[in-house]
């Protein structure tokens, strides 16, 4: 949607009549345009005002209408102001359109990338099969835990009672402690972890029937409102 500049078009209507072509000697400008100049600046065709780039390119040309040569010859200040405003409006419009195109492309790209969830790392090897949709689907699922993460990190689960993200990792959305099949912990660590979660819930610092309030905050206070 081009910007509707009411003042600009009003000004233009009054200026078109004074637009004295006799000052220019080039053929394109000497002849009157085939069609009446439209109300929207981006519809103006031909050599009159193609784009801001064109007007910049013709900066050094002697027949530039608003050049210093013409200044003394009676081109009104109003006309120069109008043409400048027109140029600026067109440039803005072009930039806006380019920006919109870019954003649309970005959105489309993002949508397709969601179907290709594999994050490629340097040194990965792929064969044609790895680029197939079947294989890509497998990268959406979370890999099951194959080792004991508590052993791997060398932490004591009993100390993690204030680490709510750690508790959330090992509890369901309604507060149950997950089975060792899902957590993948060895019995010793599973017992310690369960003890820690029971303590946190018993102390009342972590809910036992729903997620942590910070996690479901958006449901009650939507971020947009």
């Amino acid at each position, binding site marked *: 949607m081009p910007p509707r500049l009411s003042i600009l078009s009003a000004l233009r209507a009054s200026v078109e009549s004074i637009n004295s072509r006799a000052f220019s000697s080039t053929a394109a400008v000497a002849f009157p345009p085939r069609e009446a100049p439209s109300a929207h600046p981006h519809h103006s065709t031909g050599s009159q005002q193609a784009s801001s780039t064109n007007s910049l390119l013709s900066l050094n040309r002697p027949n530039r209408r608003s050049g210093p040569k013409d200044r003394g010859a009676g081109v009104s200040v109003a006309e120069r102001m109008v043409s400048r405003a027109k140029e600026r409006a067109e440039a803005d419009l072009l930039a806006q359109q380019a920006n919109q195109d870019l954003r649309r492309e970005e959105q489309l790209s993002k949508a397709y*990338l969601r179907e290709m969830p594999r994050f490629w790392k340097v*040194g990965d*090897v*792929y064969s044609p099969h790895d680029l197939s949709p079947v294989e890509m689907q497998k*990268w959406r699922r979370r890999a099951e835990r*194959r080792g004991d*993460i508590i052993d791997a*990190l*060398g932490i004591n689960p009993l100390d993690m009672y204030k680490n709510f993200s750690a508790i959330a990792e090992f509890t369901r959305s309604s507060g149950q402690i997950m089975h060792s099949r899902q957590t993948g912990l060895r019995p010793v660590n599973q017992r310690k972890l369960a003890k820690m979660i029971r303590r946190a819930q018993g102390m009342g610092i972590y809910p036992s029937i729903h997620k942590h309030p910070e996690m479901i905050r958006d449901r009650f206070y939507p971020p947009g409102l």
Partner: protein
Amino acid sequence: MGGPAVSPGGALLRSSRMFSIPKPLPVSSSASTFLGEQRASATMTKAKPRHQTITSPLRSRQKGDWGLKRPLPLKTTMATTTPLLRINEVDTVENITDFQSAADHSLSLEKFQELRIPMSIPRRDGEVVSATTKKEDNLRSVFEEESDFTDVQDTSVDQRWKFKGPWLAQMADGDFLNYLNKKVRPQRVQFRALLRERLAERLTSSQNRAAVESGKPTPEPIKAEDLTEEQFSDYIRSLRNDRVTLYALVSKFLDLPPLGTPIGFAQNNLIFSDGNQATDKITESPYGKSGPPPSHPSGGIGYLRTGAFMENHAVYGPQAKKTPIQARVVSPRIGPSPAKLGVGGFVATVPVGANEFNVRSGSKFRRPLANGINNLDISTYGGAKAYIEPFTATVDPEGKVVVQVRETSPEAQLIAKEMRGLSSIYNDSELKRTIPQPEPVEELPQQELHDREVEGHAGEAELQDSRVKQVYDQMLSEEQNVLSNSSSYGLDAESSSEPPSETK
């Protein structure tokens, strides 16, 4: 050769596939491997093969004969253009042979060797390569005399890639604690004995020097047993403040992979040199920053020593640039991570510098980006591709092969396209000759390059520092408290957890 003679039956068995297939390489047992992988696919092509690939001639294949215990089904092994298999298990409890196609790795190997790039040692820390300097100048082949090290027992070589100790920065925390408790702690007594020897040597040499200066006969050498506890604890205190010497001693004792040279190392070394070769030598290992590779630095994937050869075109003559490779843009730029290219099936980063693969804001030399770099290219059939020139490959600490690429010239691209019949530039009519003007060389901001190098290692350097300190503490702490220390039995965790349970 020696060895007992085998019976004909035994010889037959030994020469059979069943017995000659080597055991698969072990899966890396380190915990850090699964900590990083949140999402993965079980059927993906692994970054490195574990199994040997076998094949069979057509006549045998038609009978299902792969030299194994039982014939393999024709339906799968004959209906393929790549009869390459990996045998997961020769015989399973279900009485079948567990096999799988090995075309992925075998063809990747073939494609890699078609790239004709040499394997090189990773660049040393702080070595900044700019687009203007020739990168080949800094490359050292892994097969050079001084670094092609295959004797694992020999620990005197400086450029080794194999060490008895682990690379501390790469270990997961749990692994590190295990290492401290199981490997480092039990060796404290030996290490203190070594320190005593060293102190005795130092004292002897200083007293000898004093005697020579004052013109007296050299006194009896001081023995390690004669040192007093006070002397020894003073020495340990001084060592604790001298990180360079202490690290040299501990890393030599535990045979740890080298660290990157600390800041001011060289200056300190010159000033406080005690004439000891072991500590004075600055570790020149290329694996200081990134860590040693798990295999020989060639990874066994390529055996070229150099890429310094010139290609000749049948019509155009010798070429300044190698034949460019068409790389697939496997992933566009996502946030801060640059776009990824697939070069012959190996994922690589885009070439460094001001080129069509990098988004550079506010640069004078802004060039239009290649397809699929900023956003996923959904219009090109088969995905976006770009011509690049791979020039070397290295093996990273995880054992992955990292292909390094740079941008190629438009002429080389044209010629490559002409070879494929996609363009036509050959013209044997008389041409008007012009003298080409030399192009101004684009200069690359050094800072950005350096940032790229550094960002990957900053976290590890800190980790390494803190861990090295912990190793020192373990090595130097008193051995008397070994038995009385409850933490050595893992009791600390339980005792600290007692008070809260009492309040229940």
